[in-house]
């Protein structure tokens, strides 16, 4: 009898584990797709490091919002963070244009300063905030299945992170869908965009706002620094695989899903951080594309070079 119960418990546990794995991978994928979509615009605008800066700089905003609202999953917080993100972008431009500081230094000074402030706030208010340095660094995606949204009547609605990341993806898809023409034009030909009456500045700040909101929404799960990898690695990989922008968006989203799945199992295998493993996989995929891409791969280029050289040698 007892053995029977035990085995039942075990199957139940393994089912739960599978469910947890599924939830973690799902949340990871949703976040990765959101980041990939925005990242495509970032890397083509040569603003990857601005994305990096924003993801660091929102930290003090998150801590302050946390102190005020007492929770980290409010819409208030996501909106507040987008303000800080835009403020960061503004600050970088201010230092660059008004103080004539070179762009790379303006970025470097701004985000390290804000991030340092965030970490200090975190240490000072350590007792009052349910956030710690580890979470800032690599998130707590492993706890996603435990942090449930339970309504007042007691109904279990599933993990909160699922709703936050799903909502964020929806917002990003709508944003890119509605503003596709504007974003596309301001990315590839800002001068032309300006002549047909599209405000380059407005769309610049809107994009930065979207990046900030996504960063904050992903913060719990993957942390400040690894979110940069999700913003940059899948789009950069896709960029090596296609010249078509729409395809690039689709491919990088696909890569987002693949790294979430493979990363999860790598983390389970090594018993390490899931976010770290997801990023590691993103790096692996980029490396593969870098060497073996049928369009841009290093090996292909080498091969073509050698063929050309052989042809030339024959002709001579």
């Amino acid at each position, binding site marked *: 009898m007892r053995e029977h119960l035990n085995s039942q418990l075990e199957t139940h546990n393994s089912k739960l584990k599978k469910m947890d794995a599924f939830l973690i991978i799902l949340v990871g994928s949703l976040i990765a797709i959101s980041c990939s979509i925005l990242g495509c615009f970032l890397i083509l605008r040569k*603003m990857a490091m601005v994305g*990096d800066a924003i993801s660091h700089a929102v930290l003090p905003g998150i801590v302050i919002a946390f102190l005020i609202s007492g929770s980290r999953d409010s819409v208030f917080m996501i909106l507040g963070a987008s303000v800080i993100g835009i403020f960061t972008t503004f600050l970088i431009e201010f230092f660059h244009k008004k103080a004539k500081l070179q762009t790379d230094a303006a970025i470097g000074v701004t985000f390290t*300063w804000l991030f*340092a*402030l965030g970490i200090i706030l975190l240490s000072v208010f350590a007792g009052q905030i349910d956030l710690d340095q580890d979470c800032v*660094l690599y998130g707590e995606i492993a706890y996603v299945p435990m942090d449930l949204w339970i309504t007042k009547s007691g109904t279990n609605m599933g993990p909160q992170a699922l709703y936050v990341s799903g909502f964020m993806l929806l917002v990003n898809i709508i944003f890119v869908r509605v503003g596709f023409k504007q974003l596309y034009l301001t990315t590839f030909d800002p001068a032309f965009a300006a002549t047909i009456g599209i405000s380059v500045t407005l769309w610049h700040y809107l994009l930065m706002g979207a990046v900030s909101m996504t960063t904050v929404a992903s913060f719990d799960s993957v942390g400040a*620094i690894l979110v940069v990898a999700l913003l940059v690695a899948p789009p950069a990989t896709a960029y090596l695989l296609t010249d078509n922008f729409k395809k690039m968006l689709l491919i990088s989203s696909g890569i987002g899903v693949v790294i979430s799945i493979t990363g999860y199992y790598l983390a389970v295998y*090594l018993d390490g951080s899931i976010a*770290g493993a997801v990023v590691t996989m993103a790096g692996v995929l980029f490396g593969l594309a870098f060497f073996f891409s049928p369009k841009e791969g290093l090996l292909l280029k080498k091969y073509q070079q050698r063929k050309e050289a052989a042809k030339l040698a024959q002709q001579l």
Partner: protein
Amino acid sequence: METFFEFFSFSDASIVSVTVGAILLTASSAVVGTFTFLKKKALVGDAVAHAVLPGICLAFILSGNKNPLILIIGAFITGWLSLIIIDGITKKSKIKEDSAIALILSVFFGIGILMLTYIQHSGNAAQTGLDSFLFGKAAALVGNDVITFGVVAVTLMLTVSLFFKELKLISFDSNFAKALGIPVKGIDLLLTTLTVLAVVTGIQAVGVILMAAMLITPAAAARFWTNDVKKMTILAAFLGAIAGLVGAYVSYAAPAMPTGPWIVLIISGIALFSFFFAPQKGVVSRMYEQRKMQHLMMNENLLKSLYHLGEKDDNLFKGRKMAEILSKRYFPKKKLKETLTRLKRQGFLISTQAGWSFTEIGKQKGQRVVKLHRLWELYLTKYMHIASDHVHEDAETIEHIITPEVEAELERILEFPTEDPHDEKIPY
């Protein structure tokens, strides 16, 4: 307060070693950072800083202990590797440098985090404290560690001073350096090595995440105070050292606090102050200069318009109402009023019943602007062969800038002409 005095009396030997260590680390990275800053490669330092994490972890996994020398070697290898990969990606594919930096920075860091969590979960007792490399812990600098890191820091500073001229040259103009016969590739390699070493040592105090600030921020702050590279380097080192000192104090007074963020906050505070208030280069001083120039131009344009009006009805000292001035030239109303009162205060104009009119020096000043404008127009048509209907715009700007010396020179080469290309009289 008590801890403050306790710390700054330096009575405890460990306080001295921690302080000396922290100051050496931050100052040496500031020195190296000056050159990466001048080469506009500031963010590369950020990438190296993040990329040393997997190296530290790997060195620990392989050796099983926290010997600083082994960790430094590990960090050095991955730090170097990250630079080579960034360079390779930028050169061999269509991916731009900023994307390559962001990619390598975050991916290396991700791998580092994966390794670090793997080590932490593996239950190796020696691993505790490994995570202090993330945000830095100056207080961990004791005994032999201080000697190891101190030696590296001093070597860094000595190397920079030895190769100062070469480093300076490649930072500004590597083609010129090449022409002078300086081995540019070798010096580049040296700078890269120095950067990696600076990062590897600096992380003990500041941590990998904020290490970039120690390379960039002191240099950026120092840049606002001087144009001399030598002075800039020394100033950057000094500012870095101040931040290092504070870091050591925080580490002593609040052991639970990571020191890195405090060091960065202090140096950033200094930098922000410099951005705003440095003489000549600061935002405030720039704005002041701009305003001064704007006032000067408004003054001169207004005096010029009054002179033009006087020329028209042959009465230079007649009072003019604002409407009359506006009929000659457009000014925003508020600006016009401001300028009129300013000119009155400065004694160039008086306001009478009939309106605003010149004083004697006001007339002279207006006359000079008109003269300069017309002289320049004549110069452009005569010597530059520019059509006479194209010269007005240019004269409009240059008339505010011409110095008395240039004025005399113009008069001399044009031989005191009487009329400009539009047949207007040039007043003397």
